[in-house]
């Protein structure tokens, strides 16, 4: 589905991504893990066209570099780490998710309204529709932004550390929603994660990044067994009741 080949990004003569190659299988959750400044967020910004790169990124065999911004936005959506606080209601924000389908000659239709309602329901955010974003808690804001990306109705959703400002209860709830959405609506998720235990729990496959390179990418069980996470992050693995915990 998503295929990245020999991706390179240089910023001010410093190499941020150094020949990344990665394939993401459809309808799965791929966790992207790595130390700080290993290039995870830069990789996501290449997918949305924010960052210039050399190499090739294809989505269903179509080169992203040859697509317009709008075409790209109909295939890939992004939920960034730092969420803004616009002075609008939840519904107004979720409606923005339909932007790639609207134009000067194509205004908001019933079909768009249906997608917005569906997204609010899928993200369990119906009760937030009339609430102002500025009055929402961190967890509620994350939910409503998730609803916005779902309203965008893309096949791939990229998340950049989506739960970094959440308490453990909201984090658990967010990943439950994410796994449910991937299964129910047949979405594909590429998630930058810092919580290694959570990555081992929810991801179908894990890609490990270090110094701008993918050093390992395989099914979650294989990555866990390989011991690369312990080696790279200097942590210990505990297996407890079928759950893998990194400390």
């Amino acid at each position, binding site marked *: 589905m998503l295929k990245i080949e020999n991706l390179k990004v240089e910023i001010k003569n410093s190499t941020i991504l150094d020949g990344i190659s990665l394939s993401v299988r459809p309808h799965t959750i791929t966790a992207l893990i790595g130390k700080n400044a290993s290039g995870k967020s830069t990789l996501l910004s290449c997918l949305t066209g*924010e960052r210039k790169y050399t190499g090739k990124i294809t989505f269903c065999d179509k080169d992203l570099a040859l697509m317009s911004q709008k075409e790209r936005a109909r295939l890939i959506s992004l939920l960034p780490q730092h969420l803004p606080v616009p002075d609008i209601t939840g519904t107004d924000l979720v409606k923005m998710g339909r932007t790639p389908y609207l134009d*000067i000659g194509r205004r908001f239709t019933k079909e768009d309204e249906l997608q917005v309602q569906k997204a609010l329901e899928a993200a369990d955010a119906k009760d937030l529709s009339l609430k102002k974003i500025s009055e929402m808690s961190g967890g509620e804001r994350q939910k409503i932004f998730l609803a916005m990306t779902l309203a965008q109705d893309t096949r791939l959703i990229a998340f950049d550390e989506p739960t970094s400002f959440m308490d453990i209860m909201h984090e658990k709830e967010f990943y439950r929603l994410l796994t449910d959405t991937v299964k129910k609506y047949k979405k594909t998720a590429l998630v930058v994660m810092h919580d290694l235990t959570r990555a081992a729990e929810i991801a179908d496959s894990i890609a490990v990044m270090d110094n701008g390179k993918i050093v390992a990418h395989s099914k979650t069980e294989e990555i866990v067994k390989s011991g690369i996470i312990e080696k790279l992050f200097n942590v210990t693995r505990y297996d407890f009741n079928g759950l893998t915990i990194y400390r």
Partner: protein
Amino acid sequence: MYICSKINFSKSTVILAGVAVTALLNAAISFVSYFDSDVLSVYRYFSVGGLSGITPEQLKTPALIIFTSVAIMLILSSKVDTLCLGDSLALSLGVNVKGLRLICLITASAAAGSVVSFAGLLGFVGLVVPHIARKLSGGNTFFLTVNSCLIGSSLVVLSDLFGRTLLSPTEIPVGIIMSFIGAPFLFYLLARRKNHA
């Protein structure tokens, strides 16, 4: 705009580029007035700002530019809303961020330039009006634009009426009245900012 396109279109870049261009043009005005002192009296009237002596006939060209600019802004208002989410999200939503920002800068500059070239430097309209309009319309760019147009034009016309009648038959330029309204409003904004901090 050229400077911004070479660096970036962030708010601080636009403001700093504006300060630099203003300094350059002020130097040009000083240079011209050094050789021809008559220019100074015209410039003084221009810098205060006023609507006297302008006929409806003269307003055709600026009206065309202003109405076109407002129409473009209204058409693009939903896209401008997405810009408020930041560049990453706007790009992810399929918005051509650089292009949209350039169009916004051109239309805003054209509309402001048309007004200034006829009414002079009407101080504080651009500061007072968008704040009031934002209070009324929240984060919705469409309503913000409509409210700004209505409140801005009403405020200038009322200030002009006040200036013409207060010391009649002497006319106080509308720019002076606007400054009397705008300066306290600026103090109010600063006080509110201090309270928020």
